[in-house]
């Protein structure tokens, strides 16, 4: 049977500075991207309908072609849709409308869209209307949630290892694991939704697994540093690759079916876990090596 083996990296060839430089540079670029977005748009990442308010409608349109269906949708509604997305190869389309900047109140907009869709002969599959006030409330709670989860994770990590450098190494790489996907969302134009927030929280829990494994192997187990690192790496890389594979499949299939929640959870976890591979085996390793060979000696 075919097998894959995790290759052994010869860490001795690189200095700690060299190892840490790449993830730190990526982190810096990510922070710049987010900062830039914040300066230009006023938000660190483009908030989606869940946070701005608006209406998402799923309608089945009977039209001879894709272009015709899109045209029909644009004509049917007096409000201009922000986006029209086709679900797989079906005749179902997802149209979103934002209330931001418009005079119409949320419940009125939804009611109007509903009757216009009926008038145009579309089969309404689902409607979701979010009030602007509710959206900003959700945004606030989501932010508190992410901060609380991160703080809780950091406190737990410090309690588990009870030494500063190895603990901060885990916390820094977890931070980077969240920041990099957020920067990628900006670059790829992915909106922040409840699904992406859930994925970011999930990342906080998921991504520290490999860091904990590495720290445990190096600090609490006997054996030479490089041997311990390789042992942890074999397990950790297998773990992360398994998760990446599962999440990538979920992201692709769910976006084909137009299930936004599952698609965004999958996408963000793929980004975050890929970032975690880099952060754990470059940043965390270099910090641990410094701690093991120089930090402890001092």
């Amino acid at each position, binding site marked *: 049977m075919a097998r894959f083996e995790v290759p052994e990296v010869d860490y001795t060839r690189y200095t700690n500075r060299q190892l840490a430089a790449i993830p730190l540079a990526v982190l810096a670029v990510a922070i710049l991207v987010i900062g830039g977005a914040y300066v230009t748009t006023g938000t660190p990442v483009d908030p989606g309908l869940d946070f701005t308010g608006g209406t998402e409608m799923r309608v089945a349109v009977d039209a001879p072609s894709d272009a015709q269906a899109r045209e029909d949708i644009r004509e049917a509604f007096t409000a201009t849709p922000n986006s029209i997305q086709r679900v797989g190869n079906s005749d179902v389309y997802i149209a979103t409308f934002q209330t931001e900047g418009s005079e119409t109140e949320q419940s009125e907009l*939804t009611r109007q869209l509903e009757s216009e869709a009926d008038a145009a002969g579309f*089969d309404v599959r689902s409607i979701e209307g979010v009030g602007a006030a509710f959206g900003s409330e959700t945004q606030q709670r989501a932010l508190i949630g992410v901060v609380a989860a991160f703080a809780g994770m950091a406190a737990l990590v410090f309690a588990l290892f009870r030494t500063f450098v190895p603990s901060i190494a885990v916390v820094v790489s977890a931070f980077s694991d969240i920041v990099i996907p957020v920067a990628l969302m900006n670059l790829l134009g992915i909106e922040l939704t409840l699904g992406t927030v859930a994925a970011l*929280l999930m990342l906080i829990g998921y991504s520290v697994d490999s860091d904990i494994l590495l720290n445990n192997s190096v600090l609490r187990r006997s054996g030479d540093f490089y041997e311990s690192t390789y042992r942890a790496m074999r397990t950790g890389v297998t773990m992360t690759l398994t998760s990446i594979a599962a999440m990538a499949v979920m992201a692709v299939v769910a976006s084909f079916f137009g299930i936004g929640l599952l698609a965004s959870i999958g996408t963000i976890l793929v980004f975050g876990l890929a970032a975690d591979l880099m952060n754990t085996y470059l940043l965390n390793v270099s910090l641990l090596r410094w701690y093991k060979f120089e930090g402890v000696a001092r």
Partner: protein
Amino acid sequence: MSAWETIKENWRVVMLVFMLVLSTLFLFAPAFEPSGSQGPAAQESATNLQYGLELSGGSRIRAPLVGVTAEEVQFEGRDTAEVERQVAAELETGDSSDVIARFSTNSSGTVELVTENATQADLRNALDAAGYEYETVRDGVTDETRQQTIEVLESKINAAGLSGGSVRTIGNGDFVLIEVPNDDLSEVRDLVNSRGTVQIAAYHEVQRNNTTEYVNTTVIRQEDFQTVGTAQQGEQGPGPNVPVSVRQSEAERVQRLFVETGVAGQGGTDCTFSQENGPSTTEPCILIIRDGTVVSSFGMNPSLAQSMRNGEWAQDPQFILVTGSFERAQDVSVDLRAGALPAGLALDEGTATSISAAQGDDFKRDSLIIGLLAVLTVAGVVFFRYGDPKVAAPMVVTAFSEVLILLGFAAFIQYPLDLSVIAGFIAVIGTGVDDLVIIADEVMAEGDVNSRRVFQSRFRKAFWVVGAAAATTIVAMAPLASPWLSLGDLQGFAIFTILGVLVGVLITRPAYGDILRALLTDR
């Protein structure tokens, strides 16, 4: 080794098998079928699982209650009705049903203003003008008002025939969540949006300062009704209507008012009231006023008028409310039977969702496909990595049993499955396999495992990492699971991820260790 010893040695596996049998029972045994209609989605299916709104179709409305509340208002010996009247008199509308006063101590209590767009300043001004002292004014309504509103919403939904609906508070109690199996959002919104205050008034002439003008005199208030029938087509007679009867204690008063206002005139009355024309010359009318607007107007037939005039009607105070259209008859009947909402819902500050049954079925099928593909991917990667089915097969089986136990649990507590719960299941498979990889690698590291003791020590070391990883996941998911932070959408995801981690650490992962030991050490 005796059979008993074998069981004792492998008690973790026994435990896993026991949990699996139990879950299968909860999932499939008819004895555990969902009883009654809890949640919006009681339906017949192959399993005992309850499907939530997203997977079965229906409407969900989530909104805060409209209102501002003044705390510790000194009532100075007056009763609540008097406080309400005095405060309402200082408001633009002057309607005392917009003000709710409640005692919280013997001499003080809360005053709520529940009109739409009510501001803290409005209430402050009204209280100041009416001369009441108060401590603070805040947004939101009291717990009592919220509770009453929920009860009225429940009875409105039941009265409208939407069985299987549910109403509850979410968040830290500010929001009301309504779920009903009907997927016509407009209809549901109209049902819950109206306060539903219905009153019957007489519209008649009065002489005032030597001029004739028309006034409304309230004759029957919502609380005066004894029984309210269902809406009738009334094809043979007056057209769509609602039969009602008035409380015996109020019957004399109602009868007297109808006679005094001239509605029960000699030979009945013929009503030509029309809202568009404003005050017009008409004989006295009966008006049905719902939430401040006139729903319908009609006159009184001669025989009823006669029985009121000679006082017979009060012996058997029945009456029919003529509504003009069957739809309005239904609205009036629902409102009268359910009672009025103490406070309305601020729909623009919430969310409204509806999903058709067909879309629900699609989501069900699609998410099943996504879940299966994710599991197959995980299995594929694990087989590819280890090559050894002795290690990989139990891994996949164990990950599967975690999901089976969770499904059994969901069926047992009747937790409605939604897309977010399915995302939780997939996350559980992901973390579960991660931990199994840790255990497998640790146990098989550095040569063969041939003694029980070596195995135990390695397993324990691996379990430290598994436990630590589980703890971080639980900590990270806790904010989302807590009702204080979650507004409901992702609570299922967080709850099932946490449950999955717990099931994994306590039951399935230790059992995997035992299975692995049996496969690797017994030779």
